[in-house]
């Protein structure tokens, strides 16, 4: 069965660029966005006037026109935004890939920049957000008055049920954090460079929202990340080997809520990720066996496990064994989060993970595993989400 999709392989990532990742950038989010975008264009060997499309998150504060104006871009023929926080990450490239595949745009930059640590911190929750009565805010009426306000608390509900159903333990979640911090320890760009943790450290860290310890939660970061998407043909003429977008997809599951889809019969899986996985494998004409490495969205460790299950790397409830058996290590079956993940490198709403996937297919990751042909990247979990598959041409 063939689905209409952004002509698999028609688009490619030609350049990546980022600011430093810090806890207090000391400058505007616009400034971070500009630096990341210009760095990505430089990496691709393109100039701002070459750009005619921009895609970002609805959560981003930098307007497309503003960014275009101050970086010296000219006309924009395509601009688009994707919602649902980190769920948007791969979705931005999905939009960009469709734009270049259809000819709506020739070169699209996807960007995300924020002072998430020194400015408005998502980790502090929604409890004190101003009141409006649109459907968007009204959805919180069932959540925040009961004291359930933060992403960690929302994820904790899924985690508890997953433990109950499958016998997973806090240590099973902890192994994900240990893995990410081990990769970050050898990544000079990572905030936690040189600072690995042990499972005992994870277990000893304080409670945030049981069953989540502090070290189950990713850090918060100030920074920006941008990626340049052009057609694969165009990319072959540019400075870097193309990272071909073999597949891109967005997904919102049945009975989907923003981040509290607790009303489904079973809440141990991530059906929207299952949908994304199906779409990705169809487009890339492959399956889990054809994937050599993965960047798994790790805002909170517990949801990394059902991602592996939804992506077909193991059966439901089996991910804890898959992780414990070392399959996500650099020499394992599916090297994952080689940059250190958001737990170890930076929380850039998943966009830094896509950049790492580009480095993996270019063969330039600081923790480069052996042969990496295809990398699968996921976006925010618990929310309407997205994913993509990159293929290298070396």
């Amino acid at each position, binding site marked *: 069965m063939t689905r209409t999709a952004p002509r698999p392989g028609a688009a490619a990532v030609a350049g990546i660029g980022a600011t430093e990742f810090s806890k207090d950038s000391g400058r505007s989010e616009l400034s971070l966005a500009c630096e990341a975008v210009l760095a990505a264009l430089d990496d691709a060997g393109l100039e701002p006037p070459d750009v005619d499309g921009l895609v970002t998150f609805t959560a981003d504060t930098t307007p497309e026109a503003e960014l275009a104006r101050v970086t010296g871009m000219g006309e924009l023929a395509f601009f688009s935004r994707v919602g649902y926080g980190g769920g948007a990450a791969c979705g931005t490239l999905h939009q960009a890939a469709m734009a270049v595949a259809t000819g709506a745009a020739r070169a699209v930059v996807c960007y995300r920049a924020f002072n998430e640590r020194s400015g408005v911190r998502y*980790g502090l*929750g929604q409890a004190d957000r101003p009141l409006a009565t649109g459907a968007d805010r009204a959805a*919180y009426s*069932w959540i925040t*008055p009961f*004291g359930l306000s933060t992403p960690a*608390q929302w994820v904790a509900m899924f985690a508890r049920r997953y433990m109950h159903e499958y016998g997973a333990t806090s240590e099973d979640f902890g192994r994900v954090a240990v893995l990410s911090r081990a990769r970050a320890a050898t990544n000079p760009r990572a905030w936690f460079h040189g600072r690995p943790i042990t499972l005992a450290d994870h277990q000893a860290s304080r409670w945030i*929202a049981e069953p989540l310890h502090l070290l189950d939660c990713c850090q918060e970061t100030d920074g920006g990340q941008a990626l340049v998407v052009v057609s694969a043909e165009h990319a072959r003429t540019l400075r870097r080997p193309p990272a071909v977008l073999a597949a891109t997809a967005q997904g919102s599951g049945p009975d989907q809520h923003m981040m509290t889809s607790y009303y489904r019969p079973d809440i141990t899986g991530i059906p929207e990720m299952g949908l994304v996985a199906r779409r990705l494998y169809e487009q890339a004409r492959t399956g889990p066996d054809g994937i050599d490495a993965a960047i798994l969205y790790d805002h909170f460790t517990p949801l990394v496990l059902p991602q592996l299950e939804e992506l077909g790397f193991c059966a439901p409830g089996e991910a804890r064994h898959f992780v414990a058996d070392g399959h996500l290590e650099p020499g394992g079956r599916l090297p994952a989060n080689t940059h250190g993940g958001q737990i170890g490198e930076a929380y850039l709403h998943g966009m830094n993970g896509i950049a790492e996937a580009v480095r993996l297919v270019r063969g330039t990751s600081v923790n480069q595993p052996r042969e990496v042909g295809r990398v699968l990247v996921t976006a925010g979990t618990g929310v309407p989400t997205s994913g993509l598959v990159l293929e290298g041409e070396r």
Partner: protein
Amino acid sequence: MGSPHEPHESHSSQEERLRAFVGRTLGPPRRAQDPVNLPMIRHWVEALGVDNPVHLDEDAARAAGRAGVVAPATMVQAWTMRGYAATQAPPPDDGSGALVAELAEQGYTSVVATDSEFEFHRELVPGDRVEVEERVERISPEKATALGPGRFVTTVRTYRDAHGQAVATQRWRTLRFRPRQPDPEPPALRPRPAVNRDNAFWFEAAREHRLVIQRCVSCGELRHPPGPCCPHCRSFEWDTVQASGDAHVHTFTVVHHPRHPAFDLPHIVAVVDLAEGTRLITDLVGTAPEHVRVGMPVRLRWLEADPDLTLPVFAPHEQEDP
């Protein structure tokens, strides 16, 4: 609302002890530390901006019928003040100590001066040595005041010269009061629900202690959270059914961070399966984190979170409503 000095004796015995002070002299007379002198008069006059020349200028004073300069009349109180050192470190009994202690014992721990009436008998001149004696004239019954309940204490101070002649008398009134408890901080409110046309019915029912579930009139499906139309049959017609209040814990979290002033941490939030089949995010009360289990039966209770917010919460089933 107890003050730290909550009276623990009968009202009449307290009255009795205060009345014993009336007519009594508070300690021995207090002698001025220095005789009346020009430098201190100068300081006073300059500080208060007094422009009458009789206080500093001999000729002007004589022209005004005095023998020489005279001290400002109201300065009589200043000559007998105890001074900086004794204010910083009061001596064990500076005269009024016993009365002040008794008042404090009865809870009147704070003081504010209310009025001062002087009668002057003669002007003081440099070289005069003044002393003052203070006698309790009246202690009022307890009055309600803006500062808190208190008693007006009136004393008469008699200022005398070195020959024992009265130079001035002062009727001095203070309010000794029990400070009102500061108004407690208004309690922090829980995050407000965004009440709109699609969900108002549910919060209104909650205010009446009815936990309702939206029901499609057309196909009978229950749905929560509610919505304007039925995802099963697309009907926009709906009513509600009232939940029995029986439920089981589907999952839960124990919140430790971040702190919100409306919640005592750790705070247990759960997703419960209502007996009717829908789920609900709610708080678990009447239990402790270590006792909560997935699958445990719980029963509805009502939380009056604040005057504008009533929420359904759940407690372990064994625990009957009081």
